[in-house]
């Protein structure tokens, strides 16, 4: 086995036995990238000679990722290293500070790779086609999208171009690409991982999370990145458990709810079949499952697109050509012209569409009918989950209604694209944790993701169920041919 094929925990034991080093791992990844990156385009601003990492510190805590290279989505700030959200408007932006998660990774001895991973501009999208650096290709089938918006992170991990990666998830941006690329992706409970340094899309929904080759890696990374941060007012002050303790191969008696609203029309029959087989497998392993109802499921997409775009319209107002990034160079222009041209030229189409929708939802005369109504329906969606979790330990759904779709297939129809997030949005609205793990492949060879949801701060339940499933199935061991 090549080093680039290994997981974090496999590499960590090799490093501990002094059988390899951070430099050797990076060199191995470089070799792999030279071979496969032209087919995948997982990284942006890649210059293979510069594919290096920050100097490795000695881990100052028991939680160690000593020597493990970390690939970082282009919307997580890295001091002095370009962080552009794959947008023209942030062209050349070098943050003067590290995101809290970057600081935590460094403290744990991880090496931060200076080349960032591709994404939909400002995380607006489900396909990584909305990147100013061009689309990322799905390593399993290169004419398919890798999902989005953390498509670069997911494809890099799936293609063995990264050991693990960080992404961000606002409505499925970690889980959906993880599902499309056949890897593990976790959206943690809102407030468990600091958002400080994550370039905001929708502040009340965004969370940073890991994209990894297996469930153990996911737990290892969560051990490092989660925890209270005084710089983030929405970060929760609680003791972080050792998530690896939850990696127990046993689901006996675990009560799983299967929401009927997730298995209705529009779902790909193959996906349905594969997910049902996965549920059957868990039952075989001792879990109990029953149908449940989340009656407001169909409203999740419209609620999400109002709340997320409204917050985004405000969060993205700062890109105006004054302090950093792109400024439209028209000589002798007025301030108003500078604003309008900078933003008109600097933002891509999807960003403009979302900013306009969000501005509309907040504008005079429409606030109550749109934004406020959405906040109220959000309450209903949360109540649906609370009701189910009174009687169930977790909820299982397909991560996506279809496997990876073709590049260009949905890019002309934004509404159809929005509907591809239908299964991943509700957990963000409810703030609960959600994981996607590989649970099978379609006949065409595309991976299918299984989504597990649990109560607020019950990541351990996700790890337990996901680990048990993984230990009893071969899907996580499959690799795309590149």
């Amino acid at each position, binding site marked *: 086995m090549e080093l680039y094929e290994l997981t974090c925990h496999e590499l960590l034991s090799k490093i501990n036995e002094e059988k390899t080093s951070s430099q050797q791992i990076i060199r191995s990844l470089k070799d792999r990238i030279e071979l496969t990156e032209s087919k995948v385009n997982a990284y942006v601003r890649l210059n293979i000679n510069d594919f290096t990492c920050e100097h490795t510190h000695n881990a100052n805590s028991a939680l160690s990722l000593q020597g493990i290279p970390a690939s970082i989505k282009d919307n997580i700030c890295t001091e002095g290293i370009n962080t552009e959200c794959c947008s023209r408007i942030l062209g050349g932006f070098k943050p003067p500070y590290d995101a809290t998660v970057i600081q935590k990774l460094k403290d744990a001895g991880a090496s931060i790779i200076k080349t960032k991973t591709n994404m939909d501009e400002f995380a607006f999208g489900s396909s990584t086609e909305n990147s100013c650096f061009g689309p990322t290709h799905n390593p399993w089938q290169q004419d398919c999208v890798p999902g989005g918006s953390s498509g670069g992170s997911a494809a890099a991990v799936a293609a063995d171009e990264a050991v693990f990666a960080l992404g961000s998830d606002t409505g499925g941006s970690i889980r959906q690409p993880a599902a499309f690329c056949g890897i593990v992706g976790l959206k943690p409970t809102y407030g468990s991982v600091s958002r400080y340094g994550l370039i905001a899309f929708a502040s009340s929904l965004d969370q940073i999370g890991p994209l990894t080759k297996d469930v153990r890696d996911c737990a290892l990374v969560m051990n490092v990145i989660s925890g209270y941060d005084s710089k983030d*007012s*929405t970060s929760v002050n609680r003791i972080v458990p050792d998530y690896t303790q939850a990696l127990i191969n046993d689901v006996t008696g675990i009560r799983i709810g299967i929401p009927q609203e997730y298995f209705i029309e529009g779902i790909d029959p193959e996906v349905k079949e594969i997910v049902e087989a996965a549920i059957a497998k868990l039952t075989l392993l001792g879990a109990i499952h029953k149908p449940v109802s989340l009656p407001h499921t169909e409203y999740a997409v*419209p609620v999400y697109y109002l709340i997320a775009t409204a917050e985004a319209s405000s969060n993205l107002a700062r890109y105006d050509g004054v302090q950093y990034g792109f400024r439209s160079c028209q000589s002798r222009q007025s301030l108003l012209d500078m604003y309008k041209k900078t933003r008109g030229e600097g933002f891509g189409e999807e960003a403009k569409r979302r900013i306009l929708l969000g501005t*509309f939802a907040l504008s005079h005369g429409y606030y109550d009918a749109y934004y406020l109504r959405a906040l109220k329906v959000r*309450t209903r969606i949360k109540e649906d989950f609370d009701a189910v979790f009174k009687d169930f330990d977790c909820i299982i759904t397909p991560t996506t209604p279809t496997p990876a779709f073709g590049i260009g297939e949905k890019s002309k129809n934004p*509404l159809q694209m929005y509907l591809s997030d239908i299964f991943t949005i509700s957990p963000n609205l409810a703030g609960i944790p959600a994981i996607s793990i590989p649970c099978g492949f379609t006949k065409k060879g595309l991976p299918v993701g299984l989504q597990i949801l649990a109560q607020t701060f019950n990541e351990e339940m996700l790890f337990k169920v996901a680990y048990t499933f993984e230990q009893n199935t071969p899907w996580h061991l499959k690799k795309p041919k590149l």
Partner: protein
Amino acid sequence: MPFSLDTVKYVAHLARIELKAQELEIISNQLQDIVAFIDMLREVDINAINPTSHILPLQNVLREDTLVESLPIEKALGNAPERKGSFFGVPKVIE
């Protein structure tokens, strides 16, 4: 239908985004579809529901009034498209 061409123009002005004529038409058609879809929310009974702005019941998050070092000026202005001395420069604001 609230999303007329005028609405798009108004909203684009509020958001300070210049749209080319063709872009304006495409986007306003798309937004019309999206808003029509979103209008399904009208079916939901929202009487006596509190809006959720924050999903976690966190409150009273405060910090002490203690100084933290500011950025060196060169770092603060390091990304500036235009500067004069230690100021950021913008096209003249007409008062």
